[in-house]
């Protein structure tokens, strides 16, 4: 079958691409559009390294077809910073050294963003359950939790009253 034409909003910009049915959204992001921030750890929904936000919902881009993006609004790790300015979540991950190799980090940051958008002050239990689908094989999760807590506190403090 000929490639299909898909039009979506990616990180606030109109994006148009051609893809084959079996290409996942992750394949499209990395290999067609050139947004290589989202990582493929497993390709089977287990690790969360490919996490993106689609129409406000956190999903694994490896479990979504590229053709399903038609008409959708998608945020990837590349859309988290505001221009050159890191998002507070990214800043806190750096300050708390919540990464070693960094492979899981884009997914963790996108997942943390989706959590704080929905629940600005999560309890530790809520945050740990929310991130249960993001696996890190180097750093462990203690520093991630510290960074998340600190980012939540900073966002709350910075929020307009």
């Amino acid at each position: 079958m000929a490639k299909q034409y898909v039009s979506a909003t990616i990180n606030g910009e109109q994006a148009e691409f051609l893809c084959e049915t079996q290409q996942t959204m992750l394949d499209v992001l990395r290999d067609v559009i050139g947004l290589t921030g989202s990582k493929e750890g497993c390709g089977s929904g287990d690790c969360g390294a490919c996490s993106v936000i689609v129409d406000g919902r956190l999903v694994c881009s490896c479990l979504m077809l590229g053709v399903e993006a038609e008409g959708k609004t998608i945020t990837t790790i590349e859309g988290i910073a505001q221009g050159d300015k890191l998002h507070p979540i990214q800043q806190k991950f750096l300050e708390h050294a919540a990464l070693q190799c960094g492979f899981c980090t884009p997914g963790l940051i996108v997942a943390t963003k989706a959590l704080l958008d929905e629940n600005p002050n999560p309890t530790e239990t809520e945050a740990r359950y929310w991130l249960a689908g993001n696996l890190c094989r180097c750093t462990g999760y203690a520093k991630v939790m510290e960074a998340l807590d600190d980012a939540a506190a900073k966002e709350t403090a910075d929020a307009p009253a």
Partner: protein
Amino acid sequence: MSTLSYAAPTTVDDAVKLLSGASGLAKVLSGGTDLLVQLRSGRVRPDLIVDTKKIPGIIGIREENGGFVVGAATPGAVVEEHAGMKAAWPGVVEALDLIGSTQVQGRCSLAGNLCNASPAADSVPAMFAAGAIAVVVGPNGRREVPVEQVPTGPGRTSLGKDEFILEFKFPVRPARSADAYLRFIPRTEMDIAVVGCGINVTVDEKGVCTAARVALGAVAPTVIMVPAAAAALIGHTLDEATLAKLDAAAQAAAKPISDKRGTVEYRIKIAGVLARRTAAIAFDRAMGKTNGKAH
């Protein structure tokens, strides 16, 4: 060269025509959390994918004649945010909530969980116990099928190749009715049930059970109804004698296999224990004692 086609029809008729007209294997796509994994591993090699999500009503929840109708492809996260479903069917909602991670919840659906037909599918014992009805559409129109008649074996269903599920109907709740679902896994998140148990009961003012449905997962080639376990509950309060009978009936119905998650003996024993615990939660909820989460 790729031969896999994709279509996202916007009406039931168009979807049925696509499925009927497909020359090779056609697969219906809801959230894709099973289908994409199987595509990638080569376990299924379809020629056509029919994405149903653009069909109006297939995502979303509405009230109809006092009951709830849940669109077949509604993501788990959407069902969990629905206060009405949570109040009426806490067991179905907690079972669906157990599927996968936050990311998987953003996509996974009741129809996909049922039609993937895994014996360990978490929402399925809860749907069986609820007495949910699948509204199946196909070339001959609509038919209503009790969910327990959908799975026929691991990975197999009773649906024709040109049929799919449009929505699920959850019946009207009599007073003092509630359901619960528990699964047993060796860890707290992200694992597949060793055994799952869904129980749905109605009780009178004194706590005597007047109606019950019990279903078990992961103890047979499909999720199973256990009428003997329901019979052990009906006409009784949940005292120790009733619990013992329920436990025995659940164990007698369990015909599991041994695998890396548990042996036959272990699964049978767990089936009884889980039935006890699940019944306790369902009865408490029905009596209005708690309405919290079981997990």
